[in-house]
C-alpha cells in the first residue's frame, strides 16, 4: 500500500489536473465554409396542464366511487371504476404522482426550506383524505391504481387468523413513520423506492421491483390486497380519517336483521358483528382494563420516543452523505480503501473531509431531533389501538369497520334485506 502511495497520489493529481483543464484544450475552429453551428434539440417535459387534468380526474373518480359505494351500492360499478382507475392512473399516467407517495412530498416540504411542494402533489395528498372524511375509504375502493390492480386480481379470498391480521396491521404504521422521517430529513423517498406495482404499470423496472410486485399479486389472489392491508402508509391516514367519516358504506340498504349471512364474506375482516348480550363482561373488569391501557398510552409514547432517539444514528445511514462519511472514516481508521463510486467521486471532486464530517454530524443531529417524534407517533398508535380494543361499541346490527373497510362492496350481494322503495 505504502509502496503504491506515490503512484496513487500522482494519479489523483493527474485527475485533478485534467478535470481542472478539461475545457478549451482545443480552440474553437474558425470555419471558412460558412459552417453553421447546429443546436442540440432539448425537448421539454409535457405541459403541467396534464397534472392538473389528473387532479380533475381524481376528484371525478372519487365522486363517482362515493356514489357507487354509498348510493348505488353496486359492486359491479366499483369493479368497473377500478378498471378505469387502473387504466388511467396506472397504465396511462404510469402511477406517478400518486397520493400514497405524496405523503413524502408533504413531509419534505414541511421540514425543508429549499423545496416547495407542487400544488398538484399537495392536492393529491389532501383530496382523498377529505373524501375519507365524508364517505370513508372510497379512494381505496376504486381510485387508487395500486388498490385497483389488487382488487381485480384478488379472486380467491381466504381469511387470515385474527392474530396474524392484527400483528401485520402494525407494519403500515412503522412504514409511514419511517417514510415521513426519511423524507423530512431529505434522505430518501422509501415509499417510491419500494412501490410494488409501478414497474408493472410501466412494464419497465429493475427486476427486484417486478419480482416484489408479482409476488404481492400472487399472494393477493388468496390474501386480498396485501399491499393495502399490510404495507400501505397512506392507508394509515385514510384509516384514521375514515373512522370519523360523516357517512360510510353500509352492508345493508335498510335495517339489519342479524341474519349473519354477511358474517364471513369480508376478506379484510372488516365486518363487525352485532353485540351478543350473553357475552357481556363484568363491568368493573373491563373498566379496569380500560384505565390500565389508558395509562399505558403515554408510557408507550415515551418508550417509542426514546427507542427511536437511540436508533437515530443507525437510521441516518439512509442519507447518502452519512454513508459516504462513514466509508471515508473507515478508510482513515482501518485502512480499508473506500472504493464505492460515491467515495471515488468525492475524492475527485476535492471537497475536504472536514466538510463531509460536519455535514454528517448535522444530518445525525437532524435525525436525533426528528426520529423521537416518529417513535412517539408509533407508541401513541400502539397505545390507542390497545385502548380501542378495551372499549366496547354497541351495535344492534352488522356494520363495516370504518377504519378497515375498503368500501369494495363485496358484502352487498350477501344482504337479503330489500332496499326500501323510494318514490
Amino acid at each position, binding site marked *: 500500500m505504502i509502496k503504491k502511495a506515490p503512484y496513487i497520489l500522482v494519479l489523483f493529481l493527474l485527475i485533478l489536473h485534467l478535470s481542472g483543464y478539461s475545457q478549451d484544450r482545443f480552440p474553437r475552429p474558425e470555419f471558412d465554409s460558412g459552417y453553421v453551428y447546429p443546436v442540440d434539440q432539448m425537448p421539454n417535459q409535457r405541459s403541467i396542464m396534464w397534472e392538473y387534468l389528473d387532479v380533475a380526474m381524481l376528484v371525478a373518480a372519487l365522486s363517482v366511487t362515493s356514489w357507487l359505494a354509498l348510493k348505488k351500492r353496486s359492486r359491479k360499478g366499483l369493479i368497473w371504476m377500478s378498471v378505469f382507475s387502473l387504466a388511467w392512473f396506472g397504465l396511462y399516467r404510469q402511477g406517478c404522482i400518486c397520493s400514497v407517495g405524496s405523503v413524502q412530498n408533504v413531509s419534505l416540504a*414541511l421540514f425543508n426550506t429549499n423545496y416547495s411542494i407542487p400544488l398538484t402533489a399537495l392536492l393529491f395528498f389532501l383530496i382523498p383524505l377529505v373524501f375519507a372524511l365524508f364517505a370513508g375509504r372510497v379512494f381505496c375502493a376504486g381510485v387508487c391504481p395500486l388498490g385497483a390492480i389488487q382488487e381485480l386480481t384478488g379472486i380467491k379470498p381466504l381469511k387470515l387468523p385474527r392474530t396474524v391480521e392484527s400483528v401485520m396491521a402494525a407494519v403500515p404504521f412503522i412504514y409511514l413513520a419511517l417514510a415521513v422521517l426519511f423524507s423530512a430529513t431529505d434522505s430518501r423517498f422509501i415509499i417510491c423506492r419500494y412501490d410494488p406495482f409501478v414497474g408493472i404499470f410501466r412494464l419497465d423496472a429493475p427486476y427486484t421491483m417486478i419480482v416484489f410486485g408479482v409476488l404481492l399479486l400472487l399472494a393477493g389472489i388468496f390474501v386480498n390486497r396485501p399491499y393495502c392491508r399490510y404495507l400501505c402508509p397512506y392507508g394509515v391516514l385514510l384509516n384514521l380519517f375514515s373512522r370519523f367519516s360523516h357517512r360510510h358504506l353500509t352492508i345493508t340498504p335498510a335495517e339489519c336483521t342479524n341474519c349473519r349471512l354477511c358474517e364471513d364474506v369480508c376478506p379484510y375482516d372488516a365486518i363487525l358483528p352485532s353485540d351478543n348480550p350473553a357475552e357481556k363482561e363484568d363491568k368493573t373488569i373491563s373498566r379496569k382494563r380500560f384505565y390500565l391501557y389508558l395509562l399505558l398510552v403515554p408510557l408507550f409514547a415515551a418508550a417509542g420516543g426514546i427507542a427511536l432517539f437511540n436508533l437515530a444514528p443507525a437510521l441516518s445511514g439512509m442519507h447518502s452523505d452519512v454513508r459516504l462519511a462513514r466509508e471515508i472514516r473507515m478508510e482513515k481508521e482501518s485502512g480499508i480503501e473506500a472504493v464505492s463510486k460515491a467515495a471515488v467521486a468525492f475524492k475527485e471532486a476535492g471537497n475536504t473531509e472536514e466538510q463531509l464530517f460536519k455535514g454528517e454530524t448535522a444530518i445525525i443531529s437532524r435525525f436525533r431531533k426528528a426520529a423521537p417524534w416518529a417513535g412517539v407517533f408509533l407508541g401513541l398508535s400502539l397505545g390507542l389501538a390497545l385502548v380501542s380494543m378495551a372499549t366496547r361499541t354497541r351495535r344492534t346490527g352488522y356494520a363495516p369497520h370504518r377504519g378497515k373497510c375498503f368500501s369494495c362492496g363485496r358484502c352487498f350481494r350477501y344482504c337479503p334485506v330489500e332496499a326500501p322503495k323510494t318514490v
Partner: protein
Amino acid sequence: MSKEKNKYQSRRDFVRNTGKALIILPLVALPVALARKTSASGYVWQIDPHKCTQCGQCKTHCVLTPSAVKCVHAYVMCGYCDLCGGYLRQGVKTISTGAENQLCPTGAITRAFVEEPYFQYTIDKELCDACGKCVLGCGNFGNGSLYLQIQQNLCANCNDCRIAINCPSDAVSRVPEAVQYIPKDKKQGSE
C-alpha cells in the same frame, strides 16, 4: 336503562366529535402551513454537467430502459478535432469511422467531414444509452463539449429519481420546471 344508554351515547358522541375536530385540524392547518411553500408548477430532474463524473450509473439505474438520460453536444464548445477523444477508442491505429475504432458501444455518434481538418460529431439519441464513455473521453482529452442530460420528453419524472439516489456526485437534483435543462456552453462556464 334508557338514561344509562343516553349517558353512553353522549360520551361516545363527545369522543367522536373531539376526534373529528382533532383530525380536521391538521387537514386545515396543512395547506395553511404550506401556503408559502406551494408552487403551481412542478419540478423536473436534471443532471448538473459540471458535477457529473461519468460513472455510468445513469445508464444502469434509470427505471426506464433505455435510460431517459442521453448524451448531448454543446457544438459551440467542440474543437471539431480529427482525433476525437469522445469518438475514437484510445490507441487506435487508423483514424477512421471503422466500428473497431469507435468508442461508443452503440455506434450512436456519427462523424461528418466539415472542412480540413475539422469533423462534426452528432449524437443519435435513439441509439444513445447514456453510458457516458464518450463524455469521459471528451472530458479527458478534449474540450468537454459532450455531456449527459435527462431528456425531459422521455423522463417519467418519478417522485424519487433512482439515478439521483445512486448518483455518487449528487449531480442529479430537482430543478424548477421552468429550467428543464442545465446546458453547458462557454458563456455559462461553471455555474
